[in-house]
């Protein structure tokens, strides 16, 4: 009896604690991190940014990752900016020329730029940066960004010529990312390798001043910065005096940090909380849709039954993509419709109408293809073989998506088996060609990468083996290669539109959903914008 009452008391206590916690979320006013400014005209402030991932290095020329680049973007200024896909704007380079065949790029550089350590920016620094990337000793993962690099020639102090062994049209686009952004040669040469990885020196609006521990990176405003690109709405140094990145991987803790005032901006809040935060006047939210591939399911075209066009098309009709996307992201992310997402340059909106949700059409296609419904099992059959598709993917969002798709395909008599496992194990299954459905998703800037990774025949066995549809189609290979060498932008766009349609006509993928990244901030944080790869620009941010 006493034992029981004690237990009851404990349970009650915990319940009370949770109620307090719940109420606190609504009532506690987040303390303003900055006292109200006496001079409202002066924009400034200090930002504490609750960031979703830990990073070991922020040396953009050597390492990058989707999330790491979001921090690097504040530190590195590129030669060329790309505010929207295909639109190139001067950055550290004032103008450029591309040779007829697309293999030599000549850049005129700004003559008034200094890196964070005072080293002047010039042609030598550009050459140093590129040479360092291709030097095997740097162990740079960015080598692919510089493609068939041959050499950089210093013409004079502020003119460089970059030579490639073959035409390399994506170069300008790649330049606009952080990967190829110039770094200070003096800093690289004088700092220890480990130290430079954490304290890279570049020419962006913020400089790295401290990593007090692995979960904290402190950036400070670079006071001499005066080369913001034309599309930013101001010149001179950034408004924010300081940015402190706090790495908080646990979603709930990150959200609490925002609500308790320990951070004034966070990224990637829990998806199910986004709509509540959007309605709350205390917070502003900012959602960025990322270019590249949507989350796609890849039917294996070399195995029965997904080798049949009719089966693949039937799946496209049977899956309600709107509903899958909405269920997976709590209504935040749009559905995917094709090989590239809507935020990607050359995306063709017409692609969305190719396969409307149409269960009857799906059934019709399967009937015509000779797949007969076995009423007792609910699964179609042909020649005694059930219409079974095994989906192999890592556990998490992928298998959640798989389970929703499973329910939709069941309606048309397809037995969609979700086999969730560790990512490493999926790689083995893919390599062994032991699956009927794979999956892929990638944030990418240039559409070439999306097509090359997932549809070029060389990627069935080579590269990361991401061509999990196992498509080996000379027409696709040829279009991809033409696209990568085409210098004319309009012609390139045409090629990618053709590819999108061809891939969907062949039903080589089942697009699921696009991805996005939401930032939530206290409503006194103003001015957040993002680049075309979905990386925030904190240069224009200030705290009111």
């Amino acid at each position, binding site marked *: 009896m*006493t*034992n029981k009452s*004690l*237990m009851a008391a*404990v349970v009650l206590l915990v319940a009370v*604690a*949770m109620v307090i*916690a*719940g109420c*606190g*979320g609504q009532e*506690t006013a987040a303390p303003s991190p900055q006292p109200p400014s006496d001079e409202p005209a002066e924009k400034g402030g200090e930002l504490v940014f*609750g960031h979703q*991932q*830990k990073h*070991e*290095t922020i040396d953009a020329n*050597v390492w990058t*990752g*989707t*999330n*790491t*680049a979001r921090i690097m973007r504040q530190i590195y200024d590129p030669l060329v900016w790309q505010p929207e896909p295909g639109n190139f704007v001067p950055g550290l380079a004032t103008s450029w020329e591309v040779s007829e065949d697309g293999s030599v790029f000549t850049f005129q550089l700004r003559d008034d730029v200094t890196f964070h350590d005072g080293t002047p920016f010039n042609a030598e620094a550009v050459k140093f940066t590129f040479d360092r990337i291709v030097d*095997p000793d740097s*162990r740079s*993962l*960015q080598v*692919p*960004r510089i493609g068939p690099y041959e050499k950089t020639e210093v013409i004079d102090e502020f003119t460089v010529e970059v030579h490639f062994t073959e035409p390399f049209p994506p170069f300008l686009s790649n330049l606009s990312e952080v990967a190829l952004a110039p770094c200070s040669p003096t800093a690289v040469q004088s700092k220890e390798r*480990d130290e430079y*990885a954490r304290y890279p020196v570049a020419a962006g609006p913020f400089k790295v001043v401290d990593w*007090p*521990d*692995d*979960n*904290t990176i402190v950036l400070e405003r670079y006071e001499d910065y005066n080369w913001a690109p034309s599309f930013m709405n101001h010149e001179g140094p950034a408004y924010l005096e300081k940015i402190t990145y*706090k*790495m908080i*991987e*646990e979603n709930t*803790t990150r959200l*609490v*940090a925002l*609500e*308790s005032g*320990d951070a004034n901006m966070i990224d990637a809040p829990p998806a199910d909380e986004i709509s509540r935060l959007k309605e709350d006047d205390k917070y502003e939210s900012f959602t960025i849709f990322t270019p590249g591939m949507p989350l796609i399911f890849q039917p294996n075209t070399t195995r029965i039954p997904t080798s049949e066009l009719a089966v693949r098309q039937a799946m496209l009709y049977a899956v309600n993509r709107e509903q899958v996307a909405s269920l997976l992201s709590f209504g935040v992310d749009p559905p995917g419709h094709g090989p590239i997402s809507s935020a990607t340059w050359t995306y063709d909106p017409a692609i969305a109408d190719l396969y409307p949700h149409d269960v009857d059409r799906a059934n019709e296609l399967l009937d015509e293809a000779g797949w007969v419904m076995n009423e007792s099992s609910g699964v179609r059959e042909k020649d005694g073989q059930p219409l079974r598709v095994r989906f192999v993917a*890592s556990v998490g969002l992928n298998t959640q998506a798989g389970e929703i798709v499973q329910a939709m395909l069941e309606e048309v008599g397809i037995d969609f088996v979700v086999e969730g496992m560790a*990512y*490493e194990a999926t790689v*083995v299954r893919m390599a062994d060609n032991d699956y009927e459905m794979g999956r892929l*998703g990638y*944030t*990418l800037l*240039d559409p070439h*990468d999306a097509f090359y*990774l997932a549809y070029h025949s060389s*990627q069935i066995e080579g*590269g*990361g083996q*991401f061509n999990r549809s196992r498509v080996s189609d000379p027409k696709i290979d040829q279009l991809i290669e033409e696209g990568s060498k085409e210098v004319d932008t309009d012609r390139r766009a045409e090629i990618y539109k053709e590819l999108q349609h061809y891939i969907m006509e062949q039903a080589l993928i089942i697009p699921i959903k696009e991805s996005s990244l939401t930032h939530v901030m206290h409503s006194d944080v103003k001015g957040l914008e993002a680049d075309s790869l979905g990386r925030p620009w904190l240069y224009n941010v200030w705290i009111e």
Partner: protein
Amino acid sequence: MSRYILKRFLFAVPVLLGVSLLVFMMLHALPVDPVKLMLTDHASGTAPTAAGTMTDEMYENMKRQLGLDKPLHIQFGSFLFRAVQGDLGRSYRSDKAVASMIADNISFTAELAFASMSLSILIGVVLGVFAAINGGTWLDAGIMAVSVLGVSMPSFWFGLVLILVFSLGLGWFPPMGAGGLRALVLPAIAMGVPASATVARLTRSSLVEVMRQDYMVTARAKGLREMVVVAKHGLKNALIPVVTIVGLQFGALLGGSLVIETVFGRPGLGYISVNAIWNKDFPTVQGMVLFMATLYVVINILVDISYAWLDPRVRYDGGS
């Protein structure tokens, strides 16, 4: 005694060697190519943006840079050779020296381990003694019931409840971060309280056993006060199993806890090990395992030595 300690340390050498070899072989038996994973892994969100354009040349270069093109016995030999000099190699991922990764994070893990250990001993021993001397009463049953809750409570859940109550609700402590006492309080409670439950249960059962011994009757018969009897004669003898468990717990805590680090956004060793395993970062996994194995060996030796202090009947001299 010193001979015994020396012997124990000598025995540790084959243990550490065996652990290193086992981990090395397990890593290399994995059907995953770390170079390929590094160049193409996108699952972790840390992949290079256009990994698909990786060339064979780039792959071979990377492999050579990492020393993975050499025969296995050479790779293992050079790992050992460098390890005894305190060089645990460099991470495949970040290119940081593994030893300095440990050095950068050990203070955060150690302060948390000490804080939560102290808390768990304090709460555990006090509650255990309290339950034992009130053996059979409702108080005893109550304490033991709560301790069942403590043992079975998942630490991430408890951690989140603490954050919701004390950070979001009351605003007393920051929900995340490290450095300073305030940031240490919640993670120490989240780790220490569940650990204290084990200590409490063990202290109680051990003490109840000791209380029945004849020498306890003798002590009481001498006219000693009950508190002195329990503390000096009872508890000291009852502590041996408790010290064993606390030692093991401490070893585990010093290896870092990914769960607690993640929930509280703290730096620490747990993240390094787990992240290295995910990334097939061989040198980091090897280095961390060797480091933790060494910790365990040292702690176990210390625990054994403490037995002699707690119970004079335990002697390590005379080559026994």
